[in-house]
């Protein structure tokens, strides 16, 4: 977790998530839209140098709100580490391995939340009254962190399984459906990376998101629908929680801390996606203007030689 503090000078709180919704009917560089590609390279638009001159000191995506949220998130994660690794007691049955679950439960909660937000945002995009590319960008940003946290969930779960079940992996109903959910959202991100206009990207990925979210109830109820070695929920939906107070606090702190991380990331990332879209549009505008000028110059030269 890295705080955005100090990365931009003098920005004010403006956290409504509005973004420049430039819409064009032109082809865009789809690979640049798939921001999950781990690169810090800027889009190779024709306008790179021109835009560089247009930039300002307030270069990033941070606001006062995201900076405060970033600092609070770091503090919450630090307290979580303290309680999870030091202060909370070992479980009477699971022993020390219960400490893995404070990360496991928090990350899977955020993954579910992220995928649901992706679906809701996709629905908002498809609904004509609320249709805006901002919803599409929120959906994309949310799915990215959902995929990462689902991968962490599978990793931490396999480590816990090695201790508790004696193996890293079992083809259990919950574990298998979770892996399937992970692969589905990797596919969703791949669909977002396909070429086309911003609107084409938004429309097709919204449809995929609304279908993919239907897997979440299947994953959640898989432990009841099929015989499973994975335990059912210990806290959620239970009126009689049998957990030590410190363990319960650590579990809830984990969900809160990772949720704060999720909000921080989605705010930043959807702004990055908005800038990528804006650069795509501006790059195309400049490229078209350059081609038009080249055509005019060529025509002038031709007319000059014929006279």
């Amino acid at each position, binding site marked *: 977790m890295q705080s955005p503090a100090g990365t931009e000078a003098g920005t004010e709180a403006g956290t409504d998530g509005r973004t420049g919704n430039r819409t064009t009917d032109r082809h865009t560089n789809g690979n640049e839209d798939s921001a999950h590609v781990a690169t810090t*390279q*800027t*889009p190779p638009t024709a306008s790179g140098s021109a*835009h*560089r001159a247009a930039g300002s000191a307030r270069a990033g995506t941070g606001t006062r709100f995201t900076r405060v949220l970033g600092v609070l998130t770091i503090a919450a994660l630090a307290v979580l580490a303290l309680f999870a690794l030091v202060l909370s007691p070992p479980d009477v049955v699971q022993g020390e391995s219960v400490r893995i679950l404070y990360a496991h439960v928090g990350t899977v909660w955020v993954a579910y939340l992220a995928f649901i937000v992706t679906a809701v945002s996709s629905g908002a995009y498809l609904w004509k009254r609320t249709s805006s590319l901002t919803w599409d960008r929120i959906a994309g940003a949310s799915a990215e962190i959902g995929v990462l946290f689902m991968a962490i969930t599978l990793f*931490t779960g396999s480590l816990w399984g*090695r201790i508790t079940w004696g193996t890293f992996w079992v083809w259990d109903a919950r574990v298998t459906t979770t892996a399937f959910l992970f692969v589905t959202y990797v596919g969703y991100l791949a669909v977002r990376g396909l070429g086309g206009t911003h609107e084409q990207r938004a429309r097709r990925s919204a449809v995929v998101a609304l279908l993919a979210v239907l897997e979440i109830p299947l994953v959640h109820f898989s432990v009841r629908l099929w015989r499973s070695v994975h335990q059912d929920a210990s806290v959620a939906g239970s009126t009689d929680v049998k957990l030590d107070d410190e363990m319960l606090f650590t579990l809830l702190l984990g969900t809160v801390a990772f949720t704060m*991380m999720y909000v921080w990331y989605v705010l930043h990332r959807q702004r990055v996606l908005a800038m990528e879209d804006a650069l795509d549009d501006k790059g195309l505008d400049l490229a078209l203007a350059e081609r038009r000028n080249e055509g005019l110059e060529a025509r002038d030269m031709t007319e000059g030689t014929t006279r």
Partner: protein
Amino acid sequence: MDHAGFIFASYIAAFGGSAGLAWYAIRRGRALGRQLPDEDKPWI
């Protein structure tokens, strides 16, 4: 602590993954932000 390697590996993955994603978002935002005028950044 029993199974300390597994437990620390879990937290390294969770915290390291989160930090990596945050770092990427900030770097990418700053790189793109330098190329765009402020009117294209409504959050400012």
